């Protein structure tokens, strides 16, 4: 089926982990960058995250995701390096603009934090099938209705994208200008988005009837189509991650 997840099917220990454990890792790694805000520690967490991406055989797939945040990273280094309020020690100067050491240090922490965040998140989404994650969350008590919403979006968007192409072609053939100066392009926005919106709202009407026919609103306990996967070292790994976070807090308070 044509869905739009970034999930990459590979055979690796990371893929076999419980999605919830990976979710815990994302939360823990981001939290740790705040508990221990030193470049050395954040660098360590970053290293572990990249290592896990390599073990999960998805390091190459994570690069495009990291590239997306490149602009933010550049902007952080430039703005903090030149303009951070605590700047004192000069590093180098371009004309009248001076680049400072303190700003670079601040930027280094921020950039590594962004990288940890994006890296850990990539680890989760590249090695976890969305339906597996949603199913696990529902088993842990999330409303099945929210689960339905999340999974149906992933199917709906490719459909809407197809509708969009169709409508763009149809409107162009009727003479709607989609290129030209700003005003022309602004004017083209309504005839393009209008039909897509109407179309999708009409579909919700039909879909809600179809769902209600199938007992969507039924108060009975929902059962699962897929058999539950077994995750052997689940508790151990979760305990380990929690332990490291607690250790980090203790280190910060007493160290």
């Amino acid at each position, binding site marked *: 089926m044509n869905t739009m997840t970034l999930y990459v099917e590979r055979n690796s220990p990371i893929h076999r982990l419980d999605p919830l454990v990976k979710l815990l890792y994302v939360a823990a790694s981001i939290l740790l960058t705040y508990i221990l805000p030193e470049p050395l520690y954040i660098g360590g967490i970053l290293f572990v995250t990249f290592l896990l991406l390599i073990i999960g055989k998805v390091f190459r797939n994570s690069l495009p995701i990291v590239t997306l945040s490149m602009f933010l990273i550049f902007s952080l280094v430039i703005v903090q390096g030149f303009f951070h309020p605590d700047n004192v020690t000069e590093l180098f100067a371009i004309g009248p603009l001076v680049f400072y050491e303190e700003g670079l240090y601040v930027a280094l922490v921020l950039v590594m934090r962004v990288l940890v965040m994006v890296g850990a*998140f990539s680890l989760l*989404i590249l090695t976890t099938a969305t339906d597996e994650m949603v199913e696990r969350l529902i088993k842990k008590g999330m409303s099945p209705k929210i689960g339905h*919403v999340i999974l149906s979006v992933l199917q709906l*968007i490719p459909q*809407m994208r197809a509708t969009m192409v169709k409508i763009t072609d149809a409107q162009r053939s009727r003479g709607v200008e*989609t290129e030209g100066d700003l005003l022309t392009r602004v004017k083209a926005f309504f005839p393009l*988005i209008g039909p897509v919106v109407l179309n999708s*709202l009409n579909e919700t*009407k039909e879909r809600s009837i179809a769902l209600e026919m199938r007992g969507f609103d039924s108060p009975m306990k929902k059962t699962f189509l897929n058999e539950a996967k077994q995750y052997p070292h689940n508790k151990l790994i979760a305990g380990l991650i929690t332990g490291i976070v607690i250790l980090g807090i203790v280190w910060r308070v007493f160290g």
Partner: protein
Amino acid sequence: MNKNSMWSLKLSTAAIVLIPAAIGINYIGKLFASLLRLPLWLDSIGTVLASMLAGPVIGAAAGIINNIIFGITADPISTVYAITSAAIGITVGVMAYKGWIASVQKAVVVGLVTGFVAALVSTPLNMIFWGGQTGNIWGDAFYTFLISNDIPQWLASFGDSIVVDVPDKVVTVLISYFIFKGLPNSLTNIYRQDSEIEVI
């Protein structure tokens, strides 16, 4: 009727199904905006429209789920702004419920308030995660300008967000308003939580 207040969590199936549609519309709006090379994102039309149609609860849910889904399918950083999207949904939902989408002028006010709220919610997030910047070129340029004029960092960060959010939200709310006004009643009626249902 207290039972059918706008904050009711008893959501109809139609209202729940509206959420994926809203997220799809968000996505399409963003796509068209970049296709037509418009200088705005227009990536919350669906959230705003859902709030107008079904109230603040659905609007907030659409906002949060939108950013989570965008996070797991394209850009993890957007997950951070799930809270902002929720605030947008709540603001528009409440104002629509109070009758602020009766005319174009009022819709502009809704857009201004929404942009302001979005900036207000984004600022602490930007401070926590990226030291006050947004990663948007115009916003960060304005941030730099403010910082170099000795404006406190959080105020500069707020300025950064305002520059980015207010124009985008005003246009987004206006577009949603025009679409909303164009919808037939048979369609708008099915989502409302507060409408009275006649029992035979």
